[in-house]
């Protein structure tokens, strides 16, 4: 039975590259080594329904989606984008860098806003990095060196299930040969999460007080613990002192941070303050930080957008050159301001992951969806274009959460067009409609 080894999992930002996938008659029958998320992702098309045909709504949002050809759907998509005054392109994070590159070209060609799923994920981390920097390292270095691992506002047991065994707390490294025994693990979270069960220390702070806690740690590290009150962020001062002591005692510390930092009060200022804390700690110790990226290639979006247009997300191409100001040009901001008049999304599901107010506007404007599976976004989409699943049905490049590029494999044949092909055809059609000739 043909087993493909070293397959890259295309679910989360861990991009585990050791999966063993059994393929029989162009069907995936077994996925070895993956976690529950990776198995569901890699075998998905054999476990549940997918979008089989391109579809169009002919008479507005109340009419049914009707099957059509790829050509018709692509033409309709191009017509919508060309007719729009203020279009926006969003998503493109569960796909290859090659497709993202085409999405940049389409956005530029149509004078669109252009944004990634970081808008509802690690966008504030990008802002924090731009404000203060983000001392980092590869997950390989982290595995081999780190003896203090802090999960701040993230829950890898649920969101990145193999992170701890492959890269962090359970992994045996060159300088931590006994794995967990050689490492200390801390969880900072308002919930006593499943990740916290194995932690040496849990700081169960009050929701929304992350900034306060980081600030208190900075005060202690800088020798000013006397100014702190007895209770900090809902925690006894002694617990905060304990964490500060663990930080000071470590040889190589790492803060893995998640939505608990980016989505709560303080937003990017909390990430910015994590960076300041590391700067303080790095006077005497070695400390780094890595954002726990969700979509497997959201890091790649940031890379591609930055090398193509100079900014990692929330880019506005309407001025003829790239403009960036996330609180103004971020997807949810422009939707809430009812500013955009056409929407294209791919490899993301804003219908499931945007707040109610943003979705209300998506029901009012023409929307195009490029995806392998039906989801809440399909509910308001006027054009639905089915796509091959990157990393399963086509190859390509993705960036791991630590910024390492990894080549994804093609495992099976498909008749679906890839995101890259779909975007290339939409670009050609847009150029044709604008009288610029084909690609």
């Amino acid at each position, binding site marked *: 039975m043909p087993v493909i080894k070293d397959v890259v999992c295309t679910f989360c930002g861990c991009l585990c590259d050791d999966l063993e996938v059994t393929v029989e008659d162009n069907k995936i029958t077994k996925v070895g080594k993956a976690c529950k998320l990776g198995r569901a992702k890699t075998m998905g098309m054999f476990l549940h329904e997918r979008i089989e045909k391109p579809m169009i709504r002919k008479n507005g949002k109340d009419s049914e989606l009707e099957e059509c050809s790829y050509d018709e759907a692509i033409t309709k998509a191009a017509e919508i984008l060309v007719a729009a005054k203020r279009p926006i392109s969003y998503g493109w994070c569960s796909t290859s860098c090659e497709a993202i590159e085409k999405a940049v070209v389409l956005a530029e060609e149509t004078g669109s806003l252009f944004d990634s799923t970081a808008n509802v994920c690690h966008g504030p981390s990008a802002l924090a990095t731009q404000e203060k920097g983000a001392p980092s390292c590869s997950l390989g270095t982290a595995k081999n060196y780190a003896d203090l691992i802090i999960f701040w506002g993230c*829950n890898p047991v649920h969101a990145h299930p193999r992170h701890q065994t492959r890269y962090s707390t359970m992994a045996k490294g060159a300088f931590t040969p006994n794995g967990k025994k050689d490492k200390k693990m801390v969880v900072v979270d308002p919930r006593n999460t499943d990740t916290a069960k194995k932690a040496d220390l849990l700081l169960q702070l009050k929701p929304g007080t992350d900034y306060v806690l980081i600030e208190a740690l900075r005060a202690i590290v800088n020798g000013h613990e006397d100014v702190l009150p007895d209770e900090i962020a809902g925690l006894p001062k002694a617990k905060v002192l304990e964490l500060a002591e663990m930080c000071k005692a470590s040889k190589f510390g790492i803060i893995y941070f998640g939505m608990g930092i980016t989505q*709560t009060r303080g937003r990017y200022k909390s990430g910015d303050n994590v960076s300041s804390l590391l700067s303080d700690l790095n006077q005497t110790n070695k400390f780094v930080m890595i954002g726990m990226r969700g979509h497997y290639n959201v890091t790649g979006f940031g890379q591609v957008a930055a090398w193509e247009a100079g900014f990692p997300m929330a880019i506005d191409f309407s001025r003829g050159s790239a403009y960036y100001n996330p609180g103004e040009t971020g997807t949810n901001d422009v939707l809430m301001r009812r500013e955009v008049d056409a929407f294209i999304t791919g490899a993301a599901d804003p*219908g*499931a*992951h945007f707040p109610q107010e943003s979705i209300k506007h998506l029901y009012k404007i023409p929307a195009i969806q490029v995806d392998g599976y039906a989801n809440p976004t399909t509910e308001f989409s006027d054009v639905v274009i089915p796509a091959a699943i990157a990393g399963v049905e086509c190859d390509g490049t993705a960036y791991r959460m630590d910024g390492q590029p990894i080549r994804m494999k093609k495992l099976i044949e498909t008749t679906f067009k890839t995101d890259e092909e779909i975007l290339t055809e939409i670009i050609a059609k847009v150029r044709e409609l604008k009288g610029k000739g084909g690609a």
Partner: protein
Amino acid sequence: MIGTILISARTIDQGATLEEKTSQAYFDAAAYCELSESNLKALGVSIDQNVKVATAHGTVVVPAKIDARLPDDIVFIPMGPWANAIVDPDTCGCGMPGFKGVPATVEPTTDPVLNMKELMATYKE
């Protein structure tokens, strides 16, 4: 009715059903809220009974579950359409809506839980 703070986040079942969002499995994984044991008692609600979770931004009906380790001041809903019906859309000028830390109330209800398509249809204005 109890006053609490809403937090939404990934769970492994929600993640494993992400690409089958029209399925019962996704509904089961994303349409519920977790409360502490004492909050469940205070509300007089048993597991799987429906509650109405309300914030300044909307209301949503979901079945109640228990997380014995959850503090009393938190109600948890997995990330997805049901949580997002009531999260804070304000980005505070930095692009990111408030998916966590939203003041919320919880009360028992006999109203039904909307499925994904029904919930999305409420956004047609």
